[in-house]
């Protein structure tokens, strides 16, 4: 139910007083509301839940998480070689 899918904002427009966008999920395009992420710009990735962006995906934080996981992987590999 609390599914949130990251998509790329490709166009921003106004409709009936709401800030809306076209968003691309790996080739599938949908409409979404951007009222809760007023700072969003075209090209940003947003997490979409029931047609609303609830947060913007932070590229730097995503990279840091992946770096951390890769560090764990390299430590595990070294331990595996020693064993």
């Amino acid at each position, binding site marked *: 139910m609390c*599914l949130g899918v*990251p998509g790329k904002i490709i166009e921003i427009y106004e409709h009936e007083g709401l800030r809306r966008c076209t968003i691309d999920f790996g080739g599938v395009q949908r409409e979404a509301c951007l009222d809760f992420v007023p700072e969003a710009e075209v090209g940003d990735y947003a997490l979409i839940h029931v047609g*609303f962006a609830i947060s913007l995906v932070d590229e730097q934080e995503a990279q840091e998480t992946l770096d951390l996981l890769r560090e764990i992987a390299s430590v595990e590999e070294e331990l595996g070689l020693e064993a």
Partner: protein
Amino acid sequence: MKYVDEFRDPDLAKATLAEIRRTATRPWVLMEICGGQTHSIMRYGIDQLLPEEVELVHGPGCPVCVTPLEQIDKALEIASRPGVIFASYGDMLRVPGSGKDLFAVRAAGGDVRVVYSPLDAVQLAQQYPQREVVFFAIGFETTAPANAMAVEQARTLGLENFSVLVSHARVPPAMHAILSSPECRVQGFLAAGHVCAVMGYWEYKPVADQYRVPIVVTGFEPTDILQGVLMTVRQLEEGRADVENAYARAVVHEGNVSAQQLIDRVFMVCERKWRGIGNIPSSGWCLRPEYSKYDAELRFAVEQIASQESQVCVSGQILQGLMRPTDCPAFGSQCTPEAPLGATMVSSEGACAAYYRYGDARTVAASMVGEV
């Protein structure tokens, strides 16, 4: 897909699992309170890959499942009225009330429609000014801003034929209820990533402090869940009980402030009944009095409907981590996703339905052998 595929990398998952194995020296019980995470855990078999020291129990994290029976019965009553268009998220249609479900209402001629977004329901009200459009506003904190916006938008557009049947639940009071039970086994929590995307995680600090439990904000992909488990187990092994964030690409400490402001404008905190658990103080949101003209319970005078749950169902114990789905004698026989007896079997995100679909065949087989 960017921000999805990277977090499903099997090599990173394997390495994180190995790190969890090295870290866990004693048995620990962790609970996730998000149906999406329960679903991921079963789908990827994460519970079976974890070392035997780490037990995952599945909390009341599915809003469809915990929506109380009387709200379903109210929905069925309203949807059966002539002139009504009843709009709902698709997950709710199959949930049985005391007698039938929304599919049955539709088959009997009721106008029940599935919407992707609550704004689609607002649009229906614009399209059909002669009809009453009622939206079933269920969900946790993640969904509350969208549902609040639908009400606000109906007001802005001056729509007189739009109302909402509200059944909103808030997660932190449910954690209090679980932790204050004398039988509680839970020693650490994976907090639901998208609930926290909206609310932030400042609400969890008092919970972590009061009950001395670590709480780690966790995402939904396999490496996200494993990282959440690793950070929780590390805290437990080190004797810490902090609130940490393993889902920083989507969640900040204060959450989405503009979403919280709209929730607060439209809704106020109230007591809410959780299917399988019962009444939990301050665990829900209902419409503020200024918005009562959009309250479908008042508009259709259904607020007095009360309902009786099945006596056989043990979903209350399952939702609190006291029993596993396969411990229930009705599991898979009297109770299936097609004919569910209670909360945890009604949606694919419920623990029983997830076990039924992806379930540990060996455990089921073993328990059946044991019964014979």
